[in-house]
């Protein structure tokens, strides 16, 4: 349409310019001869019309398609089956053929916030939702999508972007509604993202939106108020505290066990020592016995007497000696100490 207006403007300009030039040359446009004048004016009208139509055809027959665009060519409203390639293109002039262009770029749809340049606008109502275990969280989501089928995109639904936005809201709430608050806040996020994506892809193909979901990002999952947030943090602290306590106990255990292992080694080595000393004592005793025995074998009587006397010498020297007869009465008292001393002397 804008080309048509442009063509008419250019046509009018050319006619006015032509008249001006004639005037400048002194050839008055309004001739004395009315017949001439009329036919002359008619000529102008035809000329203007021809120029306008010509310009319209030229301006609306050529168009360029950028590499980053899809172009859909319609002939009397009927889209051609194939998508127009990029480059300078010719088509039949306006109203017969029209071109509609769509961007190939990846679009971003956000839920829970809007990015306006550097500014971030929070939309709490959008992000507030109920989890499967009946808690409330604030979840922000970004969906990256692009148009893959421009004809479906244009003709299948009234407003694909609005539908996608609402379907995203539905998918996000469906998935969060099936998850627990702990999953949403911590380790269930990957699964949540995959589920949302799956759900959304299914809806988009069900509605035949002509778009493809490139990526789904769960930006942030937060708790609704400071108090709730603090309560959740206290659980994290308590969990840490529990681990600290277990660590302390394990430290105690390690200390005890290590100490015990030391003690164990000491007890065993003491026992080994004792064993050796018993054995060595036995060996010593036996050696002494054997030595004495070898002498005894050589001369049993002498050795027997010597040994007896030696023993009496060394043992009886301190003892008191009483000699008794068969009836048990004391016969005489012999101060054996003195006797023995004398004997030695």
């Amino acid at each position, binding site marked *: 349409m804008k080309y048509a207006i442009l063509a008419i403007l250019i046509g009018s300009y050319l006619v006015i310019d032509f008249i001006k030039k004639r005037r400048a040359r002194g050839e008055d446009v309004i001739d004395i001869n*009315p017949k001439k004048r009329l036919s002359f004016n008619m000529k102008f009208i035809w000329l203007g019309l021809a120029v306008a139509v010509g310009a319209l055809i030229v301006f609306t027959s050529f168009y360029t398609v950028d590499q980053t665009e899809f172009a859909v060519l319609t002939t*009397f*409203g009927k889209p051609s089956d194939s998508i127009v390639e990029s480059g300078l293109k010719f088509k039949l002039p306006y109203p017969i053929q029209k071109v509609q262009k769509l961007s190939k770029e990846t679009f971003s749809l956000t839920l829970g916030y809007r990015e306006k340049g550097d500014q971030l606008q929070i939309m709490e109502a959008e992000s507030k*939702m*109920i989890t*499967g275990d009946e*808690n*409330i969280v604030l979840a922000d989501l970004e969906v990256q999508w692009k148009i893959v089928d421009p004809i479906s995109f*244009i*003709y299948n*639904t*009234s407003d694909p972007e609005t*539908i996608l936005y*609402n*379907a995203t809201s*539905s998918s996000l*709430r469906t998935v969060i*509604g*099936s998850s627990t608050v702990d999953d949403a806040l911590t380790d269930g996020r990957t699964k949540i993202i995959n589920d949302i994506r799956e759900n959304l892809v299914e809806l988009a193909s069900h*509605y035949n939106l002509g778009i493809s979901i490139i990526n789904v990002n769960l930006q942030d999952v937060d708790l609704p108020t400071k108090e*709730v947030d603090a*309560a959740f943090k206290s*659980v994290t602290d*308590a*969990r840490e*505290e*529990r681990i600290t306590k*277990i660590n302390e*106990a394990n430290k105690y255990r390690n200390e*005890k*066990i290590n*100490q*015990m*292992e030391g003690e*164990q080694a000491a*007890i*065993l080595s003491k*026992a080994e020592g*004792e*064993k050796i000393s*018993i*054995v060595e004592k*036995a*060996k010593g005793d*036996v050696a002494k*016995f*054997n030595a004495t025995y070898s002498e005894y*074998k050589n001369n049993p009587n002498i050795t027997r007497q010597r*040994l*007896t006397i030696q023993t*009496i010498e*060394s*043992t*009886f020297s*301190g*003892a*008191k000696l*009483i000699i*008794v007869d068969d009836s048990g009465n004391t*016969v005489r008292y012999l101060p054996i100490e003195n006797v023995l001393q004398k004997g030695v002397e």
Partner: protein
Amino acid sequence: MKEKTSVFQNIGKTFKKIVFIYLPIILIAGIILANTFIIKPNEYGVIKEFGRIVKVIEEEGLKIKIPFIQSVSKLPKHILFYDVPATEINTFDKKRILVDYYTLWKITDPIAMLETLKTIEAAEARLSDIMYSSVRNELGKLEYGEIINPADNKRGSVDLVVQDNINNILRNNLNGIEIVDIQMKRIDLPESNEQSVYKRMISERASKAQEYLSQGDAEKTKIMANADREVAELIARTSSRAQEIIAEGEKEAAKIYNDSYSQDPDFFKLYTTLNSYRTSIDNETLIMIPIDSPYLKYLSGE
């Protein structure tokens, strides 16, 4: 004068030419242009004759209608989006929640649609009405937990039931429209309920935190008690091992003694007797010797 006449004659001729040649051409062209129209793939063209619908064009392309008698209006053929206003419902367990649905619908029979609903806006109003009576009914059979958590699939099937209900009503009323899909895009709690949910979340977390703390204490005590028991066990095992070692020594010693002493039992008797004197007799010992003891012979020098 003659000139003037010819001028007027000329003007007359030109006017005649304009009136009888150019003007009809322009008029006819104008009428044709005004009565041709383009139908896009996502449009229905509805042709009326004096207000009566005579034809529905479903095929896209360049179309023409009869001038003056026929008029054309267009209706969307593609899927339409309608954001149904949010409404509060009562769940089976008497909780109030705010549900917000959107629906996708399309016109399947433009004539019926125009006859019963007339405009898109009226159709949307109609959808909103039947949708919420159906949603209220069906969701009213579910408990709060079942509505918010679609994992057990009860709500998903409710959505399908609602969709079927609505389509049945629309079909029975010959509305010429059809629901393609309904989705719950939001569920919210009334403000006062939100506050109580927050309170519950806080108290749940507090008890969870306490549980961790108690668990920590319990596990600490358990580990320490286990450690003490392990140590006691180890000590017991070690001392019994030590006893065994000593016993081994004694066994070995006994063998050594036996091997040696068994050479001559008589000498052994003498040897040990004498040795036992050495160890058992001291200064305080009082020795009584019978008068005929062989020791006395030694003592008296006999």
